């Protein structure tokens, strides 16, 4: 019974992690976003 319980926990853990990765991939920054952020950090908004 404990074994199946652990399996259930594993299932929940894998499902939550996979769902977490999958659903937040759309909100991940693009390379251009990263570039813009870096230039803003170094030069401010006006010089970017």
């Amino acid at each position, binding site marked *: 019974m404990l*074994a199946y319980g*652990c*399996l259930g926990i594993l299932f929940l853990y894998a499902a939550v992690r996979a769902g977490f*990765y999958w659903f937040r991939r759309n909100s*991940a920054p*693009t390379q251009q976003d*990263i570039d813009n952020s*870096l230039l803003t*950090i*170094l030069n401010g908004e006006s010089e970017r």
Partner: protein
Amino acid sequence: MKKIPVHFRPHQPVKYSYQKLTICKSCQTFTALGNQQCPACGKSSLVPVEQHAASTAKRSMHTSLLIAVFIGLVAIFLSHTLLQMVLCGAAGLSLVTLLWFVQRQVMAQETNRALLALLQQDQERLGQDMYRDWETAFSNWDSDKQLTYELLRELSALLRNDTIRLQQVALLHYFVLRKDMDLVLEPLLITNYDPLLADYIGELTKIKRDLIKDSTFQYVLNYELEILGLENGQDILAGVAGAAVRMKRYVLSYSGLVRRYAHKLPKDRFLRLYRIVQQNPHEMGERLTSEVHRIYQEKYQWDPDFQEPSTRGSLI
């Protein structure tokens, strides 16, 4: 001033500025000068920031996988029968594989996320490291101008301000400029007028006029009066007008500039302008057309080159 003949090291342009950035794995110092050793701790542990971010993302994902494997092993350990162990093992393996597969699919996005977090977490330090690099580059000004220029060129992908642009322009005046050199102009255009920049533009009109584009024409037009105040100002403006003549679009867009300095164009540039005006009589505007014809009548009426029909693409 005697100019220095130089051969610049090949410049690797990058699509994104952060691709110039490296980070020390040991002390987390950033640098963009392409060093082998960290400028802060001296260790040879510099890696591109992208690589560092990918390692961070992978480490996080591996931790998740290890936790999943651990839970699967606990399930197998707690099984009473062989059937239970096999079932737990198979289910555990399937779930870990599924998790691994999903992680592979989102690896690129997680790396981007880790990279952005890396750059944002210590913004003050990043800025200080870049300005330290700038000071390092500038410190070679007296001893090695070529190296200073090359380092500033690398840094200018990240530090975009008129000061660093002017430093590069000032250094270029120390060098003998040649057609085969990897020269740029648009990234060096500053907000205000500077005679060194005007002079550099004048040099480029002789050796690399294809670098003279819309932003340069606009700059020259904005500061035409100031450029005329220079000793060689008329020559610079005539050179820019000569560069405009290489494309009909530029002649149309900057017809005023071309008209004002058409009389100073060398023969080959004027011939090209003359042919553009001849082939497009209704597009060029009355003032430019009449000025071109006036110069033709005055200087080239009997020149055989002007009597031949134009051959397309012969003169750029």
